[in-house]
């Protein structure tokens, strides 16, 4: 693929930038994301996930089933903070990462 081809259109990340992460040892979508911001724009990786997996596959020879899915966090699609805040006093729409972590004697279980 041409090096200048855009892979993540939201953050304007090129094929070359993705390949550079792979040459430095990146093997998953989240590796590429953390280093380049690929997938962190308005579409939240809905378009570039499969293209990045394809590049990892071509560059490393890993089969597509060896390239895991990116973590899909809440909120699943962009939402206004005002909406997420809600007008409810009994329900909090905001979820903390700590909600899913169980602590036992000061350590993550």
């Amino acid at each position: 693929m041409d090096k200048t081809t855009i892979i993540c259109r939201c953050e304007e990340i090129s094929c070359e930038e993705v390949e550079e992460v792979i040459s430095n040892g990146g093997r998953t979508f989240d590796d590429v994301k953390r280093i380049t911001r690929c997938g962190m724009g308005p579409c939240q990786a809905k378009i570039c996930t499969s293209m990045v997996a394809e590049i990892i596959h071509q560059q490393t020879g890993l089969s597509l089933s060896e390239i895991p899915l990116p973590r899909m966090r809440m909120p699943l699609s962009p939402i206004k903070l005002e909406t997420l805040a809600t007008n409810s006093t009994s329900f909090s729409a905001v979820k903390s990462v700590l909600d899913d972590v169980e602590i036992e004697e000061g350590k993550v279980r």
Partner: protein
Amino acid sequence: MKTDVLIIGGGPAGLSAAIETASRGLDVTIVDEASQLGGQLNQQTQTLRPLPSVYEPMRGFELAYKLIEQIKGLSVKPLLNHRVVGFYADGSAGITDEENVFPVKAKKIIVASGAAEKAVAFPKWTMPGIMTIGAAQTLINRDFVMAGREAVIVGSSDFAMETAMQLMAVGTRVKAIIEKQSEVSAIDQEKVSELSRNGIPFYFNSFIKEVRGNGQVEQIDIELPDEVITLNVDLVCMDGGRMPILDVFYQLGCSFGFQEELGGWVPQYSNTFQTDREDVFIAGNAAGISTQGPLLLTGMIAGISVSEELQAIRSAEANEMRETLWKELGLLEYKEVYSGRVKHLENFTSPILKDQFIS
């Protein structure tokens, strides 16, 4: 808000699951981000066949109408223009109407989130005038807007062939179909030969090398095996295939397997269309990319399984109905897809991705 069955996605699979559950007296809620039920059927003007034996062949939008007719008078609450934003520790879904987020607690959830189209990357593919085949189909059939005057299509799936014919029907000149493989990927050869008869060239082992234009696509260079040709076009439709939409399953903590024939990563499920989370069922393209007939059948099976779990139908009866529907699925579904599905079921207890950290 409380409901017996929460169905995520109001397309063909979600609607057929709603019919099976609501007709047995269950209280059903359907969430869909669109402003009307029916999903992609609303812009499908082609005749769909084969459909399950209870339906005669009809056009996509007619099928949407027929399905919606059947939930009228039943206890089905459609939440249109609503989205699922995630799930909470107590299992309730966070649903937004864009003004607020509210929790919905369901006894069972059927996820029929459908498929997403994949793009095809080539230099300047982000230029206006370049879109997926689904986007072009939506423009012409739902919005009644010409997507372009002169077009090429990159890819040759059944969906691409249908869209090429629909573009021609509204007066767009389709100048070429460009396929990187050495043969068409469409299974239905009838449409392929119809396009050939209409004089549309198929360029195999070929791809778009370069796109030019001032603010929008005006010209493309196509790399053929032994030469480069230039075409003037104002529309490029990309057909990169489709993949199941998985974010809801990921949030629910479901496990995944990889099955190329089903579109890549697919949530694991059993022959009752139950995922490895016992309150979560799956239906439609999310369970493997297929055609409309089989999609309806998967929705019916999931709906029957949920009805059984909620004791709206006896197990013996549910088993019998599922067996009949699975037989029909084997008849209606493309062989390679069906065998991919059977292989996928066998991996239910040995998923590739499981127990992922969710936040």
